[in-house]
Each structure stands twice: as structure tokens, then as C-alpha cells.
């Protein structure tokens, strides 16, 4: 079973595909999420992930952050909306960016791949555990497991999607705040929902599909989209400057400098030969006449 590939970390482009594969997208409508966490459990169950120990910290939120064994976390954010308490749920998980910072940062060939349908997936067989993807991700999603020394995150249930099923979390969601389909279909539903929200008094509602990472495979409807920070989302996520510079121009400048140096050294050697050190003690071998014929 294999899906057509779009991008492979630290490798050349894969063979261009001819099949037109629609981009798949998960829609998260944060305004209809009731925080039931069925998606969290569905994720753990489908992916056979071991339970993560929890502690009571004064919130209903399962864990403070995603972990290597917990790929889907509903964050419970409290917001004081001029006297009205708003309980803002958000689905913290891999956003499956079109320009994935993790993949761009990854130095291990084939450890991170992007399928033609837009899913960004980690291949733990090829992962070297360097953690560059953790630095490269603008959403702080990939998590390092110190025991296996590999990095893990949401796969958008690529095993299910590749046979035409929906992700486990989407299937479980009892309020239909999670939906799954092509990007166009999801954006259509999301925009209709935003219109509905605006009509009912949420003037700042919008769809969160940040262009800084080329759009995401997980689009989110936010009631307070002018302040994504309220939900713990970055305002304008981009691939970190250090990563894009390191993997972009600096890589080519470095390669060029190295190749140039080698080329100059080679030309110098060819043109002028080996450097003679006048103070060197004469090698007895050099005393033997006709040394070139000794081989």
C-alpha cells in the first residue's frame, strides 16, 4: 500500500505523479466543540498508544501539552470577553501544513514525507532522533520519545485515509464539529459556518488556514479569529527563519564554498604540484632514483 509522494525530507523530489489526488482536510469547528474528548480517546484507541499518566491541575484539559504518546489534545482556554466567560476549545494536533517546517528542517532522508493528498507523515524507520523537526514546527507539535529516541505526531490516520476511511477522531466526534473531506468541501462548510457566526453576533469569526505555511490540512473555525493567541495558536505561523535560511540559501552557499575550495585546490595541485617544504628532512625514498617506476 503506498500513496503518491509529494515531498521527502533531505531528498530530491520524488517521481512526479500523474494521478490527480485531491487534498484531504480536517475541519475543526471550535464553536461547536463541547470538550467531550471522544476524539482524544478515539486517537489513542486507533493508534494503540499507551496511556499517558495525568495529574489534576485545576482544568478539565487532559494534559498540559501533546506528548509522544498523545497526538490529539483538546485545550480548554478561558477567555474573559468583556465580562462574559468564553470557554474556548481547540484541537491541538498536527496541522499538516502545505509548507511543513518539520519536513524542511529534517536532515534524515525519508524520515518525513508529504503525500500527494497533503498528509505529512513521520517514518520512524528513517528518523535519526535529532529533533530538528521540533524546532522547525511553528505549532510545536512533534514530540520526542526519549525511550525510542524517535519523534511522533498525528498521522491524520493515513492508514485509514489511504483506504478511503476518515480519521478516527472525525468518525467519533458526536457534535460533528470535526468533519473530513476535500479541502474545497471543508472550506465551503467552514465559510458557511463563519457567516452563520457573524450573523449571530460573532463579528470577528473567521477560518484559520494560515498562508504563512501555505495553508493547512487542518482548518479551524474560530469565533475570535482576530486573537488566535486566545486559542494558543500563533498569529502568523511561518517556517522558522533559521530553518528556511539554513536549508535554503546557506546550504547552497556552503556547498558552493566547499566545492569551490576543492576545485581551486585541485587546479592548484594540477598546475603547481605538491607544495615543497624546504626544511623537510629528505625522505630516504626520494633519494632512490627513478622512483616513479617503482610501482
Amino acid at each position, binding site marked *: 500500500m*503506498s500513496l503518491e509522494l509529494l515531498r*521527502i525530507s533531505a531528498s530530491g523530489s520524488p517521481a512526479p505523479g500523474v494521478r490527480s489526488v485531491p487534498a484531504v482536510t480536517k475541519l475543526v469547528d471550535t464553536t461547536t466543540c463541547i470538550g*467531550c*474528548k471522544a476524539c482524544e480517546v*478515539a486517537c489513542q484507541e486507533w493508534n494503540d498508544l499507551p496511556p499517558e499518566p495525568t495529574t489534576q491541575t485545576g482544568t478539565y484539559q487532559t494534559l498540559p501539552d501533546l506528548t509522544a504518546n498523545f497526538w490529539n489534545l483538546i485545550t480548554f482556554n478561558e477567555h474573559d470577553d468583556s465580562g462574559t466567560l468564553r470557554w474556548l476549545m481547540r484541537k491541538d494536533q498536527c496541522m499538516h501544513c502545505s509548507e511543513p517546517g518539520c519536513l524542511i528542517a529534517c536532515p534524515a532522508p525519508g524520515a518525513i*514525507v508529504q503525500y500527494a493528498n497533503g498528509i505529512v507523515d513521520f517514518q520512524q524507520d528513517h528518523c535519526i532522533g535529532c529533533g530538528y523537526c521540533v524546532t522547525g514546527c511553528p505549532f510545536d507539535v512533534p514530540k520526542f520519545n526519549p525511550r525510542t529516541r524517535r519523534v511522533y505526531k498525528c498521522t491524520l490516520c493515513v*492508514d485509514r485515509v489511504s483506504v478511503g476511511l476518515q480519521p478516527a477522531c472525525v468518525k467519533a466526534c*458526536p457534535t460533528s464539529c470535526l468533519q473530513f473531506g476535500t479541502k474545497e468541501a471543508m472550506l465551503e462548510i467552514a465559510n458557511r459556518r463563519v457567516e452563520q457566526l457573524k450573523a449571530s453576533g460573532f463579528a470577528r469569526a473567521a477560518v484559520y488556514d494560515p498562508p504563512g505555511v501555505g495553508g493547512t490540512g487542518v482548518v479551524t473555525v474560530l469565533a475570535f479569529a482576530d486573537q488566535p493567541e486566545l486559542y494558543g495558536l500563533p498569529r502568523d505561523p511561518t517556517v522558522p527563519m533559521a530553518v528556511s535560511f539554513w536549508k535554503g540559501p546557506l546550504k547552497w552557499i556552503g556547498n558552493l564554498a566547499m566545492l569551490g575550495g576543492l576545485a581551486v585546490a585541485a587546479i592548484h595541485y594540477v598546475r603547481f604540484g605538491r607544495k615543497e617544504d624546504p626544511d623537510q628532512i629528505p625522505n630516504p625514498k626520494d633519494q632512490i632514483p627513478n622512483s616513479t617506476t617503482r610501482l
Partner: protein
Amino acid sequence: MNQPLVRLTRREFLRTGTIGAATVSALGFDLTAAYAQVRELKIARTTETRSTCPYCSVSCGVIIHTLGDRSRNVRPAVVHVEGDPDHPINQGTLCPKGITLKQNIVNDRRLTKVKYRAPGSRVWEEKPWDWAIDRIARLVKDTRDRRLRIEDARGRALHALTAVGVIGGCTDTNEVNYLLVKAFRAGLGVVPIEQQARI
């Protein structure tokens, strides 16, 4: 000018060539085929069995996936449970409790034997099923013999037994509830019959 630019010995030629080749390969000529393997779908060939979630009264439909294809030599084991998309109540969805059903079935701490705590006792003892069923039958029979009201104070027929109650579960279907009423209300005269099924 027939003199070459430099005179290379064979040793020097091999050395330069090896270093050059190593440099080129280190700079990124990688011939290994890059490929990605999608995980196998763990329910690709499992046996699907329809059932009802036993927790609350909503009675969501579930599909229980078991290992193997029901061949004679295969012992099935539950590998996955998810919502039944054809079920009119939940249409494939499940709540966080319902979606843990696999752990309800595949669980070391699941009770699979009869446990009995005698009146006044502080310990649970293990008992055989036959013993438990006999005891329940005995107690029901004794209670009914003692407490069944054949008629009321004015002599009207009652056949009411209020000293025994029957509690059903949420997985009880229409047919099961029919049998409950038939066996206990029409048969034994039990008045308090309750269940939380909505199916």
C-alpha cells in the same frame, strides 16, 4: 611543448581519485531509493460484529472488530471497536466512554466469574454459575411464595409481586424487553420492571 602539465604517479592517481569520489558522494549523490510505507490498516480483514454500547441509555450502535475470519481453527480476539455508521442513533459517532469499549472487553480486571458476598460478610468468594443461578431462583421462588398478592382487600384479582424488581440494561432490544415483561410481569407478577434501553 609535449611535456605534460604534471606527472602523476599511479599511487597519486588512485589517492586523488578515491578522495574525489568520497567528496562527491559526501556532498549528496545518494542512490538509495527513498520510499514511504503507510501502516497497514489494522481492521483490513477483521470480522465485523454489530453490537450495542452497554453504557448509557442512548444505546449507540458499535461494530466490534475481531481477529480472524471465523474459521474453525482461529480463536477470535477483539482488536478494535468503533461506531456503526448504519445505526440511526449515533450514525458512526461515539462518546469518549463508548470509544473505550475495546478496553472494556480486553481487560485483565474484567469480571468473568461469579463473585458472592454473603449477607454480613466482608469478603467476596468465587462461586460457580450453577450455584448462582440456583440461588437466584431459590430466592425469587421463596420471595414470591411469601409476598405474592393474589387479590386486594376488596377481593379483586391482583397477582402483584412488589417484593422483587427486575432491572434491564441499555442493550436490551425490543425483543429482550418483550421477554422480560412476558417472563416476569405476566409470568411471576413482578410489578417493578425497569430498564434504560431506548432501542
